[in-house]
């Protein structure tokens, strides 16, 4: 069309060309103005009476209209009403313009679909990467918790078993001392020295057992501490059953669940209460966290919750949520028999 206008050196043709260019750029800039393609049609048909080559502009318009899937533009095919004769080559050019637009539009749609698929795949990849980094970060935490738990167990054993036995022996020796008042002086001195050393030993054992006690809280205490530190509203924390059977890695999982749930409640909801229930039986642990702020939040499951679900599944448990009137998150983790036995032993 530009070539035609240059050949003809016609100002009308130039203005038509410029007008089509402006309208095309306008639609490129504001895609919602697709219907303005009919204005272009009208401009071409009106200009035809002054500059006959204007009808060639319809080829471009048909192309653009079909590319933008604005099918009313096909009405431009009625242009032959304005012409005295049927020009086959011109009709073929019109058809070519329309078909090119259709093909290009199809290609663009396919490209868009592929891009969407690629974006979804990339999203999954990044989510898995995030989960992996979460798991990697959990390993040292579990290691630390295991060390602390073992230390606490040793301290408890020394204090409860060995410590009590030695104290009982010390008391027995002291009673026996009263019964030995008439005995040999040398033997009594030796007995008193042994008793003093035993007393010193009892004090050292007590001190050692006290020093072995961990500053870091573990298990139920840890969950309770998290609940107490929650700043938004009071948290009602209840424990049922014997929690001593719960292995360390399960405590790590329960801590993560509680942390994530309380963080989400702070960020996305405005709860007036939060209830946390920990139910431990011989074969499973169930943690249920509930708050009444969910109705104010519209979001779905975030990556943090999805990662928790993956982690729960990985250790044979389940992780479910209910985002109805109240937000409720339930995590159930089985405790295997051999773990129970190892804890008991």
């Amino acid at each position, binding site marked *: 069309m*530009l070539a035609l206008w*240059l050949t003809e*050196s016609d*100002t009308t043709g*130039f*203005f038509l060309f*410029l*007008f089509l*260019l*402006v309208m095309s*750029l*306008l639609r*490129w*800039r504001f895609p919602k103005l697709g219907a303005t393609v009919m204005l272009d049609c009208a401009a071409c048909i009106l200009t035809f009476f002054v500059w006959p080559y204007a009808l060639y502009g319809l080829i471009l318009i048909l192309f653009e209209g079909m590319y933008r899937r604005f099918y009313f533009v096909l009405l431009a095919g009625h242009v032959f009403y304005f012409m005295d004769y049927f020009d086959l080559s011109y009709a073929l050019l019109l058809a070519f313009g329309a078909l090119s637009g259709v093909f290009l539009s199809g290609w663009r749609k396919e490209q868009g679909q592929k891009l969407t698929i690629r974006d979804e795949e990339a999203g999954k990849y990044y989510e898995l990467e995030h989960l992996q980094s979460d798991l990697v970060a959990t390993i040292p935490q579990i290691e630390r918790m295991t060390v602390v738990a073992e230390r606490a167990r040793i301290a408890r054993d020394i204090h409860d078993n060995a410590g009590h036995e030695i104290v009982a022996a010390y008391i027995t020796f002291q009673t026996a001392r009263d019964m030995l008042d008439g005995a040999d002086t040398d033997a009594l001195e030796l007995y008193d020295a042994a008793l003093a050393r035993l007393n010193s030993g009892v004090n050292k054992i007590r001190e050692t057992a006290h020093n072995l006690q961990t500053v870091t809280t573990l298990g139920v205490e840890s969950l309770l501490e998290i609940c107490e530190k929650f700043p938004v509203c009071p948290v009602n924390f209840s424990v049922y059953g014997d929690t001593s059977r719960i292995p360390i890695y399960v405590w790590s999982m329960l801590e993560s669940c509680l942390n994530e749930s309380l963080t989400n409640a702070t960020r996305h909801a405005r709860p007036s209460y939060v209830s946390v229930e920990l139910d431990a039986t011989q074969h499973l642990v169930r943690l249920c966290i509930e708050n009444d702020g969910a109705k104010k939040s519209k979001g779905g499951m975030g990556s943090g919750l999805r990662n928790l679900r993956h982690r729960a599944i990985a250790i044979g448990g389940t992780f479910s949520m209910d985002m109805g009137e109240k937000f409720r998150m339930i995590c159930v983790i089985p405790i295997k028999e051999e773990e129970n036995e190892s804890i008991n032993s």
Partner: protein
Amino acid sequence: MNTTIFRFALIKGLRNPLTLIFNCILPPALMLIRPLWTGENFLSGYGLLILVIWGGAFLMAQGTISDRESGAITRIMSAPISMRNYLMQNLFAYMVPLTIQVALITALGVILYDWGLTLALGLFLCYTVFTATSVMMSFAWNCLFKKKESSFTTFGAVVTFGSMLSGAYVPLELLPEALQYVGAIFPAYWGMRGISSLLELGAISIDYWIGIAAMIMFMIVFLLYGGKRRMI
């Protein structure tokens, strides 16, 4: 309205010595060369002024590409300011000194060469519209390039050929017939066409308004194109 971007764009544009020469020294200097304006010379002052405005507009409009090159645009966009606001303030800052220059030249023309009111107002309008179109064209042109040097070099070639084909310093009648209308793809052609009709008839004619309308349409084309391209 916060005009910080406008002020900085103005200062940055005028800090370049070449821009100062094009915008402050060359136009008044041209006005002082009498043969250019009295038709005694082969070269026409009106055409040369078109060339100077075109070059001056391009030099001013390099602010956007230098912002992009230096990464300043990223910092500006991280502030609570919209891209439309940034562009509007920049484009306005580029146009202001050029419009003042056109007004000054018109005043000088009235004083030195006794331009009548119609001629003075007609020239002022024509040059002002051409200024705006040149700024938009330079802005759209700069959006095509990542490096300032590439933009500058290629635009130099465009201005040279465009001015020649538009009849800014060579009368169109001297060009081969096939090339006489090719220049119409440049706004300068329509600017020269408006000015020529004004000078020939001594009054504002339909041909003058055709030139103005064409330049305004060019301006819209460049603004739409430049505004759509990604700046960052």
